[in-house]
C-alpha cells in the first residue's frame, strides 16, 4: 500500500495525506460494522463515550489489543490523545533517511477521523511519533475537536 501511494505523490505531506484518505475509507466502514457486531450497542452521543469506544473496541478489532492510553490534554479543552506503544502499522516499515519525517500512523489517524466524522463529531486528527524508552515507535494520535462539538457537549451536560 505504501509503495502504491509512494509512486503517486510528490512529497511527504502528500504521502501522509493519501494514507490518511485510505484510512478514512476504512474507518467509515469499520464504524457501522463494529457497532452492528456489538449487538447490544447503542449510538454514541457523548465525546468521552465515543473516544472510549475507539480506544477499546476499534483498536481491539483492528490490532488485536486495546490502545495503550487515552488522555485529555491539559492545555486545550478540545484535545484528546490516544497512544499506541507499538503500532502494528509502522512495525514492519523501515523508513529511509531522506523521508525520515514520514509517519505511517497517518493511516491510523485516517481511521479515527472517519469514525469521529461518522458519529457527527467533526475533528482534526493527526499522528505524531513520540519515542519513549523501550518503545521507539510509540505513536500518539491527536484528536482536536471542532468548536461545534464542544458547544453541543455543553448543552447536553
Amino acid at each position, binding site marked *: 500500500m505504501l509503495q502504491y501511494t509512494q509512486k503517486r505523490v510528490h512529497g511527504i505531506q502528500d504521502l501522509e495525506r493519501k494514507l490518511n484518505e485510505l484510512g478514512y475509507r476504512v474507518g467509515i*466502514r469499520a464504524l*457501522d460494522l463494529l*457497532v*452492528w457486531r456489538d449487538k447490544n450497542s*447503542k*449510538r454514541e*452521543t457523548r465525546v468521552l463515550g465515543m473516544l472510549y469506544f475507539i480506544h477499546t473496541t476499534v483498536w481491539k478489532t483492528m490490532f488485536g489489543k486495546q490502545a495503550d492510553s487515552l488522555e485529555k490534554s491539559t492545555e486545550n479543552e478540545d484535545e484528546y490523545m490516544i497512544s499506541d506503544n507499538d503500532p502494528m502499522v509502522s512495525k514492519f516499515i523501515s523508513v529511509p533517511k531522506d523521508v525520515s519525517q514520514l509517519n505511517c500512523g497517518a493511516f491510523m489517524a485516517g481511521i479515527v477521523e472517519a469514525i469521529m466524522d461518522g*458519529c457527527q463529531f467533526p475533528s482534526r486528527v493527526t499522528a505524531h511519533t513520540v519515542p519513549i524508552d523501550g518503545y521507539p515507535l510509540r505513536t500518539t494520535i491527536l484528536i482536536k475537536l471542532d468548536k461545534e462539538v464542544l458547544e*453541543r457537549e455543553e448543552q447536553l451536560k
Partner: protein
Amino acid sequence: MNTTHSSSSSGGSGIGSGPLGYGNTPTCYFVMIGTKDNPIYEAEFVSVNTARASSGVAAIPDAKKEEFRHLNQFIAHSALDMIEDIQWSTNQMYLKSIDKFNERFISAYLTAGNIKLLLLHDAKSEDAIRNFFNDCYELYIKTLLNPFYEPNTIINSPAFDTKVRLSAKRYL
C-alpha cells in the same frame, strides 16, 4: 405498462394537488437518507398482512398514486427535523414513532454512521418494524462494505432492492 412499484432513486417531478385522503390501500413507504439529507434509497410496499383484511377495496387509480408518492417524500423530509431534535437526547438507534401525519405514522431508525431509515406506515406493531429496520441496516452495511460503493451515494443494486422487499414481506 404503468409502473406501480417505485424503486427508482428519484421520485416524481411535479407536484400534484393535495389528496383528499389516502384511501384504504395500506402502503408503506420506506426511505434511507444519507448524512447530507440526500435520499439514498426509497421503496414502496403494499402491506400484505393488512391488505387481506380489507380485500374488498378497489385499487387506487395510478394518477392518485403519483400524488401520494410526492407527498410521502415531503412527509419524510419534514420528519428529518424531528429526528435531529431527538437524536442527541437518546443513544438508542431505534427511535420509535416520531411523527404523525393524518392517519399515517412515521418511524425512524438512526444508524451509527448517521444514516436515517424512515418508514411511513399505518398502525403497525413496533417489534415488526424494529426487526425490519434491523434487517435493512444489515443490508446497508453489506452494501457499504463493497469497496466500489461510495458512501452517501444512491444505491442502485437490484439485489439490494429484492432483499429489502423480501424483508418487508416478512415483517410488514
